[in-house]
């Protein structure tokens, strides 16, 4: 059986096959700002109380601190609800992005079935969890019953082999995969990332793969836990867990990528699969460079950027925005002097959160402007004006481009 079959079989109490529609019990339910919509649907359903307040995590990250009066009011509704329902796992505006905060706080464990009202909930797959995004209305049904229907997905096993070259990182690897397989290359599928390159990756880098698997339509993007995973989890949770992995004999589709000679990659506007090597468009001027998000706002990303900059000043023509993914990341970066170094290079550091990633506030782009970003989506209008352009790349490429004021291959600085 595949990982997906094993998890869903356990969650619905009978053996399942790909294509089956099953009613499964979930282990964890996450929602952020859109909790206001969940509450509305929950009330309309006439549910009396939530099924299990211990299994619900709520936090604010998309518009923090509140950017408009409307946001402030919906934050307030959620705070009141959380208090009334006795939901202890609530993180207010200060903690950071859901996909970073939940693992850090020990909510995400191998083998769990997790749903979240955010498409990049797939990120938790990096810890060997079956984690996927759902809508607000169905989250209300989960709150009421602890269950939800799922179609058992087919599996795509992506083997990544070889040593990543210098200044090439997980973001380049996944951009290359998405560019090759396409924006719906894994639609509805359970993607498994395996291979010696993945085995050597840090947890933060594995999170990049799982996070972006969503951009090829994946239902989940899983990396099977190993010693690294168990070490990362030490001290974060006291709950026991069970590691689940696919049988080698399981029926899967397979793809293989050798990254030994992979050059830095970049996704051009306006789709994530519009990927070329950075060198092909080097020299394109930029107005803004963004380092952050649930894809690449972790400590290793900030360090990678600081290393490229190495104390040098970013170009006068570029607004270099840095957003640590969480308070934990923020604090470690402060303590290690990484933020000092980035600020000395000219960075504007924002509070942990989604920040400019979704164009709601902070770092919004004007018509005709061009931004290079470590985020995961470059859809038209995503960061402000529909006439702005967003290019997606690694922290290394974003730092090199900020330095030069134009799209730059990090191997050349």
């Amino acid at each position: 059986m595949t990982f997906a079959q094993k998890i869903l079989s356990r969650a619905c109490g009978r053996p399942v096959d790909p294509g089956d529609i099953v009613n499964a019990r979930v282990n964890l339910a996450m929602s952020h700002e859109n909790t206001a919509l969940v509450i509305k649907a929950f009330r309309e359903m006439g549910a009396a109380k939530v099924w299990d307040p211990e299994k619900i995590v709520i936090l604010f990250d998309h518009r923090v601190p509140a950017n408009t009066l409307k946001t402030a009011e919906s934050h307030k509704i959620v705070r009141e609800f959380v208090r009334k329902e006795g939901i202890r796992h609530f993180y207010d505006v200060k903690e950071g992005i859901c996909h970073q905060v939940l693992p850090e706080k020990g909510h995400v464990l191998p083998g769990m079935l997790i749903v979240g009202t955010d498409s990049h909930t797939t990120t938790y797959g990096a810890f060997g969890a079956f984690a996927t995004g759902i809508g607000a209305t169905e989250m209300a049904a989960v709150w009421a019953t602890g269950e939800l229907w799922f179609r058992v997905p087919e599996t795509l096993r992506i083997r990544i082999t070889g040593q990543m070259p210098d200044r090439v990182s997980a973001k380049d690897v996944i951009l290359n995969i998405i560019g090759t397989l396409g924006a719906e290359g894994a639609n509805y599928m359970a993607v498994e990332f395996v291979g010696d390159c993945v085995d050597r990756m840090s947890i933060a880098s594995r999170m990049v793969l799982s996070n972006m698997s969503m951009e090829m339509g994946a239902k989940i993007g899983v990396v099977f836990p190993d010693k690294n995973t168990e070490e990362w989890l030490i001290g974060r949770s006291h709950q026991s867990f069970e590691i689940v992995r696919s049988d080698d004999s399981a029926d899967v589709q397979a793809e293989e990528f050798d990254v030994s000679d992979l050059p830095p990659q970049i996704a051009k506007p306006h789709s994530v699969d519009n990927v070329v090597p950075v060198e092909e468009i080097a020299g394109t001027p930029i107005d803004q460079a963004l380092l952050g998000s649930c894809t690449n706002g972790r400590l290793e990303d900030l360090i990678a950027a600081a290393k490229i900059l190495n104390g040098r000043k970013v170009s006068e023509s570029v607004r270099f925005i840095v957003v640590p993914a969480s308070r934990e990341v923020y604090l470690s970066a402060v303590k290690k002097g990484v933020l000092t170094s980035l600020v000395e290079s000219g960075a504007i550091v924002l509070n942990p959160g989604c920040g400019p990633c979704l164009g709601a506030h902070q770092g919004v782009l004007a018509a005709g402007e061009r931004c290079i970003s470590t985020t995961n989506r470059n859809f038209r209008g995503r960061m402000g004006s529909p006439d702005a352009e967003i290019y997606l790349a690694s922290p290394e490429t974003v730092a090199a481009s900020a330095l030069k004021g134009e799209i730059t291959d990090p191997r050349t600085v």
Partner: protein
Amino acid sequence: MIKGRVWKYGDHINTDLIISGRYLDEYDMKSLSAHIFEDLDPIFAIGVKPGDIIVAGRNFGCGSSREQAPAVLKEKRIGAIIAASFARIFFRNAINIGLPVIVCPDAFCLLEKGNIITLDIRGGFILRESDGLRIGFNPLPEFLIDILERGGLVPYMKAKLGRCDA
């Protein structure tokens, strides 16, 4: 049976194109729906009539999990969306709010903007009024049709929870 005029769009119509993230602090669906397809086809929000049907290419609704995307289409009283394929979260969200979504690659090839069509969800076919052309598709699983016919997951759950209490 759903009858309406076709609006036709291409592949990869993402959730930011349907309703941009910059408007999502607005929780009133009526105000929000004024911005529908704003960066793609501004005529749509003004010209769309209740019952009209969207026909699109592959991967309709890709991108974020925002339920506002199908919700603004429902607010405009779209009869159904027929696409060559859907992104999974959009597909779920649409069913859950009671907006019919039909997977039918042939419809994308055979239908044009402005065609008047009739859609039979249970029967699994589309009829083009002008010449009676009949396009078949695999009907949705019974369980999903059930949610759709009750008007979405909220009324469906309401009935289910009501039964539990009794």
